[in-house]
Structure formats: structure tokens, C-alpha cells
């Protein structure tokens, strides 16, 4: 038993060392219970993988994920859904949550993401850049402008001076990718990480940095959390060197 306490303590300490802000739980009490993490849909694959490692270090903590479009998550938390951690795909929605008094402490940026054009394997429509999205015969879909990815996509198109009317405004990045996979649409704008996660089922066409938008992902503990120690430990793990390496293996950019 004593060995185990020491092990958990060491793991928490290790996690805290990796954290730049160092707000991790360094208490000697072993972490336990459940942490509900409400995370942006684009984090699905990376967080699921990261969780396996986190559980390895904190075997008595159960992490439960709720992945959805960021604005949906904010609504759920503000309506009293039992969330302990909120990982947002933009600062605007995080600012809203904090402004409405639902965040505990200061949100910390834990990763960044770039946009990419997603097309079918083999790029049958020959899309080479944003301008090609407006070509006749190309079915372009994107996310609703209330979803961070949709807002960024609009910004990128504006910077590139491209005007294009999408056929659909999907509720999150995952639905855009799945409609490309199913062949219903020819092109969409999603995060680089979504293209990576879909593997060989889709192809990514890079957007030059000059027209690209870097999405910033902040994370925070939710004020109403009933398990602050475990919530902070999860956040610390995401910010730790191991957590960052895991995120980057899924195509995410470093936090700064």
C-alpha cells in the first residue's frame, strides 16, 4: 500500500514538473474517483490515447470523455452537466465559460492546431489550394461558424480572398471528415489533426501559412468540479512533456 502511495505521489510530481504553470496537485493523497473531461471533437483520438497513459500512472482514477463541438460543450457545462475539465478548441468559447463564472482558475493553452483541406484519397477533383474550393463542380462543406473550426475556415478563406458557398454547415469537424470519407462531398476545411486521424481514408491538402489560421486550445478545471485534485492532475498530465509528445504524435503543434 505504501509503495503505491509513493508511486502515485511520484507520478503527480513528475506531471507537475512538466507543467509550465505548475498548478498540478502535489498532495500526497492518492487520486481517485472519476474525472469528466469535456473536450472539443478534434481532440477525440489524441485524448483517448493520452488517457491510456494517464490511467497507467493513475490507475485509481477513471477518466470519462465527452467529445462534441466546443459551443455544445459550453452550453452543457453552463446548464449543469457534471464536467471536471473543459478543453476548448478556441479562446472565444473559453472566455465565455470563464466570463460566465464556470471556470476554476486561469485557462492554459495546451496545444495548437492548423487548418488543412480534406479531400478524398487520390484527390479526384485536383484541389491544390483554397482557390480550388470555388471551382464549379466541387462540393465544399465546412463547419457552422459557431464551431471554432468553421470560424477559422471563414478567416482562412477571407485571407486568401476566396468566396465560396458551402453545401452544408456541419456541427463539428468529425462530420465533415465522415462526409468526405463517404464521398458525399469533395472538399472541406478541418484541422491537420483530423486528416492525420482519418489515416488513408482521406487526403490532406496543406494551406500555406500566410492564409492559415492557428487554432489555440485552452484547458481549465470547471468550477463545479467535485474532484479538483484529479481534474488538476489530468490537466497537468496534458501539459507535461509526455502529454505534449502524445498530442504532437497526432499532428498537434506545441503549445507555444
Amino acid at each position: 500500500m505504501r509503495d503505491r502511495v509513493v508511486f502515485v505521489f511520484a507520478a503527480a510530481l513528475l506531471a507537475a514538473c512538466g507543467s509550465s504553470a505548475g498548478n498540478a496537485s502535489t498532495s500526497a493523497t492518492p487520486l481517485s474517483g472519476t474525472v469528466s473531461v469535456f473536450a472539443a471533437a478534434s481532440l477525440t483520438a489524441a485524448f483517448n490515447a493520452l488517457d491510456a497513459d494517464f490511467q497507467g500512472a493513475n490507475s485509481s482514477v477513471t477518466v470519462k470523455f465527452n467529445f462534441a463541438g466546443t459551443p455544445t460543450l459550453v452550453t452543457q457545462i453552463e446548464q449543469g452537466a457534471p464536467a471536471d475539465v473543459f478543453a476548448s478548441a478556441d479562446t472565444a468559447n473559453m472566455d465565455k465559460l470563464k466570463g460566465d463564472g464556470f471556470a476554476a482558475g486561469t485557462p492554459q493553452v495546451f496545444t495548437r492546431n492548423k487548418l488543412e483541406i480534406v479531400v478524398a484519397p487520390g484527390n479526384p477533383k485536383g484541389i491544390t489550394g483554397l482557390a480550388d474550393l470555388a471551382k464549379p463542380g466541387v462540393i465544399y462543406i465546412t463547419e457552422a461558424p459557431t464551431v471554432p473550426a468553421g470560424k477559422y475556415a471563414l478567416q482562412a478563406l477571407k485571407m486568401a480572398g476566396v468566396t465560396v458557398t458551402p453545401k452544408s454547415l456541419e456541427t463539428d469537424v468529425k462530420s465533415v471528415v465522415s462526409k468526405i470519407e463517404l464521398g458525399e462531398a469533395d472538399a472541406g476545411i478541418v484541422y491537420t489533426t483530423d486528416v492525420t486521424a482519418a489515416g488513408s481514408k482521406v487526403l490532406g491538402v496543406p494551406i500555406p501559412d500566410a492564409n492559415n489560421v492557428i487554432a489555440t486550445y485552452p484547458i481549465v478545471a470547471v468550477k463545479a468540479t467535485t474532484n479538483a485534485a484529479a481534474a488538476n492532475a489530468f490537466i497537468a498530465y496534458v501539459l507535461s512533456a509526455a502529454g505534449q509528445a502524445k498530442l504532437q504524435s497526432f499532428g498537434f503543434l506545441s503549445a507555444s
Partner: protein
Amino acid sequence: MRREGVPIIVVLPAAIGAAFFIVPLVGLIVRSPWGDAVTALSAPETLEALKLSLIASLSATAVALVLGVPLAWVYARVAFPGRDLRRALTTLPMVLPPVVGGIALLLAFGRRGLLGAWLASTFGITFPFTTVGVVMAETFVAMPFLILTVEAGLRSMDRRYEEAARALGASRWRVFIRVTLPLIGPSLFAGAVLCWARALGEFGATITFAGNFPGVTQTMPLAVYLLLGSNQEASFILSLVLLLISLVVLVGLRDRWLGFGST
């Protein structure tokens, strides 16, 4: 006659059960920003969604009547092998998660679907991201309500009127139009209204199969869901409108057609 009291063991769960349905509706009514109702309802995007919802749900009901009444007649009158299985499959969308219905529609009528690929390559017709796609999704989910109601009407009607009309020399078509249809009128009406109300509230199959674009595929339920993230007040008001329509439909049907009101 001695009136027996209702046992507490029944009253308590019954009261909890009733509250479970009523409290969320009260919540919606109480939390809605009534002051902004007019602004929210007259916003162009709201009107667009409302108009599209009405057009699509009425079209879905029309399609359901044209295809569903003959199907209900076949199920009620024609004995053929595997009829019960066939009927179960037809009414499956009533219990199927609508998103699954939407995926099934994509795999059948999508650009690479079983029929969709052929329609796209031969005629250049595609359904996803079109208003026709919305009507298809709504029909898929709502038509079973019409089929079941009309079939029940056909089974419970007195067939001797039809036989008498036939004996008097009326053609089968004339008997159907002049005798059968008037006799099942109440079921037909109730089925059509239930079908329309279900089509109006359709969300999962629509967003999966037809996508979401204002004026083309964004119906009221889709607008409610998306506004929740950007304009909660408008979202609440739109929810209220849908609630009101459903309430009017059910109260209106209660006494006259569905027989719930009879004692």
C-alpha cells in the same frame, strides 16, 4: 356506490411520472426570453428555417399519403408470405435512432450509395445537401406513423359496406374512393397529422443525410440545435414554437380522431 380511494402506491409513481414530462416543458416556458420573442421569431434565419420546415414536412406528408396509403392497404388486405416481417421492416424507422436512418439513407441514396451512385452517374441526380434530401429523410422517419394508423383503420372498418357496393356493381376503384376512404377518414387524418408532426420535429436523419445549410436544408430543429451555441435566447424561442405546434396537434386530435378523450 362507494367510491374507493386511489391507492398511494399508484398515486406516487403516477405523480412523479407526470412531473417528469411536465417540468421540462415548464422549464422551457419559464426560461424563455419572452421580451425577445418577436425579434427572435422575425429574424431572417428563423423565418427561413420555419418556411423550409413547413415546406419539407408538408411535402413529406404528401409523399407519405401517396405511397403509404396503398402500402397500408396491402398490409391490411393482402396476405402474402413474409408479410409480418415486411411490415416490421417498414415500421422500423419508428424505433430506429434517426441518425442510423440517416446513415442508411446515405448508403442507399448517397452519391456512392446502392441506388444513389447509379442515379448520380446516369441522371446527375444527387440528394444529399438538397431540400429533396430533407423531404426524403423526413418521409423515411415519419411515414410509418401514417402506415400504422391507416392500416389499423382499414382492419377495424366494417367491410360489409364495401361488399354491398361491389354487389351493386361499383368498380373496385370506385368502392375505394367512395366507400373505403370516407370510412377510414378519421384514421387517414390522424395518421397524416401524426406523420406531419413527426416530420416537423425530425433532426437526426436530416442532419446526417441532408446536411445543414440555411434556406436549403436547415429546418427548425437543426436551427434550434445550432443556435444553442451562438444565440440561446433564439434557440429557446424556436423550441417553444415547436412545442406549441406539437401541443396544438395533439390537443386538436385528442377528442375527435384518436379516441383518447372518450371514457
